[in-house]
């Protein structure tokens, strides 16, 4: 193992954060001092918390209370490795999810004189750098400072060692999962052909559902102390799980069982070594693996008129709409736009809140529709806007219809309310689609690096705010209903509903016309820019 190489690789891996943060691509400058402020701040925070707890402990005069406090702190020490393991796993895996879209760019330059062992070790360490390391430093500083007041320095030293080791355990596990994920999903895609699209769809859906299930578990009443208790008491029951052996070593040390302490410590270190070996072997086997292309069709090329052509769209317009639809189903990042409405519906059901969500789908889908390639088509600005607009509206209406059926079945609104909500949804879809399309064309970003983007972040933000404001204006005539729901006003009459919908529709028509013209103007500018 060449440690110099490992350090160089770690420093490079840290810089990959520039891609995740999406920094400016040209003339990149960063402050080295700022990089370390977070870690310094974490240490200071940890020491401050430690001093506070230590001072409180020293100030307690009641011996019984003092013993109780000491015991509680010791329980925290024992639970700390499992807590750090859990959050390190979550953070390192989240980091890998963030980096999933930029895998090609951070693939090791395999022709350089580095070994897979060096590469793997660097990846494992670098994975911990950032928020994870800052949190770890804060905990370690707190434990170190508190231990001085408690007179438990040996236990604290062992705890700190265990925390560092357990963080590496988590990161090594994440590295193994990362390689397996790349290899397995690639294999699934290769063998499943066209079904790969469905695999990707359901895979994405499952990932989000799992994430939200964990989220709901943690936000459904469990508090921090309860979680610590669960970890501290639970790990002695399932002591045979190697990930808990560091916590078990601390537990044994606290109970003066030195042999058990040594055994658990050695076992944990051996387990860490085994994980590292597995990660190296997997990296050397699959590290340079590239997922194979998905073969959609084995048929010979046979063009036939599409449904869009039959609906009156010209050949170039129909071609762009077909391409948009394929982009939605085949591009990983765009697949989420099929997943999100389903997910939103499920969260809606899970949380049983009655938040309207209709407007979100059109805004989001409009924002991503301008995929690279559109500007290459031999198509006039008017046609470009027309086909994009039609596609967004059709897609959003389909999503809204599906979500509405679920909403109607669950909420069972009155026929008037149901009709009003659906009409308003259509108004919002049409008007906000025009707004988003204009912004999407204006802020089109064809830069695939640092990550695939269809719209610049600034244009996206401006569009979101504009959409939110205009949605408010379009929905303004329905304010009395909100007042009635809050019990501030009497429910409006039937005739007011008709009037409110008409006014809302008029506002939506004005917004649609205005922003549609803006979209056409932006499209003309874009095409002119591409031509030059």
């Amino acid at each position: 193992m060449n440690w110099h190489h490992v350090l160089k690789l770690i420093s490079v891996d840290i810089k990959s954060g520039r891609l995740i943060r999406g920094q400016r691509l040209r003339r990149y400058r960063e402050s080295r001092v700022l990089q370390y402020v977070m870690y310094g701040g974490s240490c200071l925070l940890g020491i401050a918390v430690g001093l506070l707890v230590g001072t409180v402990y020293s100030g307690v005069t009641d011996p019984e209370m003092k013993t109780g406090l000491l015991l509680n702190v010791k329980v925290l020490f024992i639970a700390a490795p499992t807590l750090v393991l859990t959050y390190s796993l979550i953070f390192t895996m989240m980091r890998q999810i963030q980096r999933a879209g930029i895998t090609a760019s951070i693939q090791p330059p395999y022709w350089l004189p580095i070994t897979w062992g060096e590469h793997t070790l660097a990846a494992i360490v670098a994975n911990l750098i950032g928020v994870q390391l800052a949190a770890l430093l804060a905990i370690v500083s707190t434990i170190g400072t508190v231990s001085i007041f408690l007179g438990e320095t040996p236990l604290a030293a062992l705890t700190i060692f265990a925390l560092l080791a357990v963080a590496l355990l988590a990161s090594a596990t994440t590295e193994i999962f990362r390689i397996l994920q790349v290899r397995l999903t690639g294999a699934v895609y290769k063998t499943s052909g066209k079904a790969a699209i469905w695999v990707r769809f359901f895979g994405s859906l499952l990932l989000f559902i799992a994430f939200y299930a964990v989220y709901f578990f943690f936000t459904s009443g469990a508090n921090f102390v309860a979680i610590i208790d669960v970890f501290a008491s639970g790990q002695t029951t399932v002591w045979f799980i190697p990930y808990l052996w560091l916590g078990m070593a601390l537990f044994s040390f606290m109970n003066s069982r030195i042999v058990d302490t040594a055994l658990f410590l050695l076992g944990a270190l051996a387990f860490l070594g085994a994980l590292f070996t597995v990660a190296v072997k997997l990296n050397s086997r699959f590290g340079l693996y590239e997922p194979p292309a998905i073969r959609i069709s084995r048929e010979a090329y046979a063009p036939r008129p599409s449904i869009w052509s039959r609906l009156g769209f010209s050949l170039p317009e129909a071609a762009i709409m077909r391409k948009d639809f394929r982009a939605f189903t085949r591009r990983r990042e765009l697949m989420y736009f099929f997943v999100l409405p389903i997910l939103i519906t499920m969260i809606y059901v899970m949380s049983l809140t009655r938040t309207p969500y209709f407007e979100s789908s059109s805004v989001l889908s409009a924002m991503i529709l301008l995929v690279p390639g559109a500007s290459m088509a031999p198509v006039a600005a008017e046609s470009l806007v027309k086909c994009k607009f039609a596609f967004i509206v059709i897609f959003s209406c389909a999503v809204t219809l599906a979500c509405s059926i679920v909403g109607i079945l669950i909420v069972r609104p009155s026929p008037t309310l149901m009709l009003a909500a659906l009409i308003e949804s259509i108004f919002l879809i049409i008007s906000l689609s025009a707004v988003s399309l204009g912004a999407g064309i204006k802020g089109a970003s064809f830069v695939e690096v640092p990550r695939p983007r269809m719209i610049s972040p600034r244009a996206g933000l401006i569009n979101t705010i504009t959409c939110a404001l205009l949605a408010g204006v379009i929905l303004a005539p329905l304010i009395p209903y909100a007042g009635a729901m809050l019990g501030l006003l009497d429910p409006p009459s039937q005739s007011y509903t008709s009037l409110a919908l008409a006014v809302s529709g008029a506002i939506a028509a004005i917004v649609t016309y205005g922003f549609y013209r803006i979209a056409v103007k932006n499209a003309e500018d874009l095409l002119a820019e591409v031509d030059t």
Partner: protein
Amino acid sequence: MTTVFKSAVKLKEVAKRYADVVAVDYVDLDVRKGEIFGLLGPNGSGKSTLLKLILGLVKPDAGSVNVLGIEAAENPVAIKAQAGYVPEVPRLYEFLTGMEYLDFTADLYNVGITEKKARISEYLKALELEGREGDMISAYSLGMKQKTALISAFVHRPQLLLLDEPLSGLDPRSAKIIKDLLRELASKGVTTILSTHILEIAQAMCDRIAIMYEGRLLAIGSMEELRAKARLPGSNLEEIFLTLTGTSDIRDVVEALME
């Protein structure tokens, strides 16, 4: 004492398969020290796999690969340390600046600080990248990325250069500099294996040329030897290549496209 090798690269009965596809089919190859050796062949003929076998990145199913006196199967890292490689698509760390990337690779090749600074500055100036070295690589054009990849392959003064389409994307001035540089390096004993589809470049630069087809080496030799083998005296490399690889039906294909 320095050991002098007559052969820089020696392959004996080397074979490599990927599932049902035969990438390299029992190839024997001997590339001499200080030679510029051209590797030609249609897409999918096994050129890139051969380069990867030489660099020790891919293990052969059969046969042995010896590079600069080192068995590739035993110590690939030692071979990589003495070789400079430019892949067909320069996949660099996009999040680094050009200078950071070159600094990183020079460090991995163990180039001393003073030498590193001098060499990188020299190459940046020669290839007109000076002033852009502080930009992130993601903002570079394809040609600039290619130049960065070339500098990183040259920076440690390697004994062996494996270059896959090295001039792709380069402007004429930079391409000329690289060609002249390769000639100069060859005169100092540096071996270059050049894989390219641009037959004019291969004809003009290479001492010997190998033509690969479906994993096999159809012919190896100087231009004169290849002409003799193809029985096409006075012909250029394009005619020899098309004759040997059996792809001389091009006129028929073009006519079909024009219909």
